[in-house]
Every structure is written in C-alpha cells, then in structure tokens.
C-alpha cells in the first residue's frame, strides 16, 4: 500500500497565499496514500504552521526567497521537510505558549501545534543555510 514512490518537492515564493498551494498537493498525495480525512487535516495544519514560519520568520516575506517543501514516505511514515532561506533560530529559546503568562498572547503557538499534530518535529540548520523543519507522522494502513 505505502509504496516508497509517493514523493514530491515543491518550491514556492514567500507569500502566505502559496500555503494553500502546498495544501492542495499535500492533500492530494495523502489521499492517494489512503490517509483518512481527519488525519489529513492534522498533517495539513502542521505543514501550514511550518510553511507559515518559513515565509514569515525565515524568509521575512522576501519574495525572492523560496520555501522548499519535500514530501516522502519511509516505511509507513510520512516525512515532510520544510526549508527556508532565513537566518535560523533557536527553538529552545521560544516561550512556552502554555505558560499562564502567554495564554492570551496573539502569537507563539505554531511550534506547539506542529509538535502535537505530528509524531516527531525536528528543527535543524540546513547546510545551505536557513532552517529546515522535519515533520514525521506514522500513517495507519488504509
């Protein structure tokens, strides 16, 4: 069922509108893999957060900078990499949005969503510069 052949790479300009483009390919691919709708929605949300951060914080909406999305399936696990061309950051230094002081903050919830919606989330500095977030989720056999 989960062949290793479902993969794509998508590079988009740093515009929020392009997040829907990623969503449309992602959804189509997950559907072809037999991933059910609720699960597709959770993966969609996590990837939206990663791409939004890449566009906003990583590339600072610079239209000449790209966001690179890689999708693959490795032995029943969906692996999505989102890379930007920004300056990088330290995920440890980010305030905990569940802290009482942050509760009514207008932002700062993206990393938490990614971590709760996926099985594994790793931030790394990419050799080519910029941040790469790797999102992993085991998918149930259809």
């Amino acid at each position, binding site marked *: 069922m989960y062949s290793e052949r479902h993969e794509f790479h998508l590079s988009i300009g740093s*515009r*929020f*509108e392009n*997040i829907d483009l990623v969503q449309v390919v992602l959804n189509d691919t997950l559907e072809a893999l037999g991933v059910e709708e*609720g699960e597709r*929605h959770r993966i*969609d*949300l996590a990837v*939206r*957060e990663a791409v*939004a951060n890449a566009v*906003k914080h990583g590339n600072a909406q610079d239209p000449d900078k790209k966001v690179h999305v890689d999708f693959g399936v490795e032995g029943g696990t969906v692996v999505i990499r989102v890379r930007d061309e920004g300056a990088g950051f330290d995920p440890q230094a980010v305030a905990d*949005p*569940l802290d009482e002081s942050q*509760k*009514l*903050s*207008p*932002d700062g*919830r*993206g990393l*938490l*969503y990614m971590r*709760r*919606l996926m099985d594994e989330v790793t931030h790394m500095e990419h050799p080519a510069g910029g941040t790469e977030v790797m999102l992993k989720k085991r998918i149930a056999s259809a």
Partner: protein
Amino acid sequence: MKVTARHHDGVTILELKGKITIGVGDVQLREAVTEALQAGAKNILLDLGAVTTVDSSGVGELVSTYTTVTNRGGKLKILNLPSRVADVLQITQLITVFEVFDNEAEALASF
C-alpha cells in the same frame, strides 16, 4: 474566508465561513471585528459553524478579538464550534477561555 454580520438584541453576530489562516482569513476576521466595534458594537457572537480550518494565526486572532472586546467592557462568545476547531483550541488550552454555545437563542440570551 467570508464574513457576514447580523445584529440581534444589541449583539453583533459575525458568521465566518472558510479558513481563518495566516495572511488572509485572520486579516478578514480582524477587519470585521474592527468594523463592528467602530459601528458601536459591544457584544460579539462569532458563529464558527462553517469554518473549516483555523491555524495558529487564526487562533491568535480569536484571542486578540477576545481581549479587545473584553477590554472595552463587552463580551465575546462563540456559536457553533466544529470539532476540528475545538481540537485546535484544546491543544493550546484555550477552550476554557471562550464561552461556547450550539444554540443561537441561548447564546443571545446569555449576553
């Protein structure tokens, strides 16, 4: 995202439809709320029944709306919360911040 405004017994009902997501839906929500407040609204009921996706920016905007309305002495409540949106509010422990109804008459009577 599409926003439709209605008024009932001193409460402004904003019906949202579609995605409250970064750069588009979140901006539209902010604009609709600002417009309502400028038109003199105090109490706002957000009908989220037709909302399909809310990302962290959408959640942030819901929180900002809540703070703004509350700081002005009004109340912000939610009507119809799709389970997907409830899940998202649950994750960041915001579900308890908002008063949620699934019956419009009851929601209106509560203000």
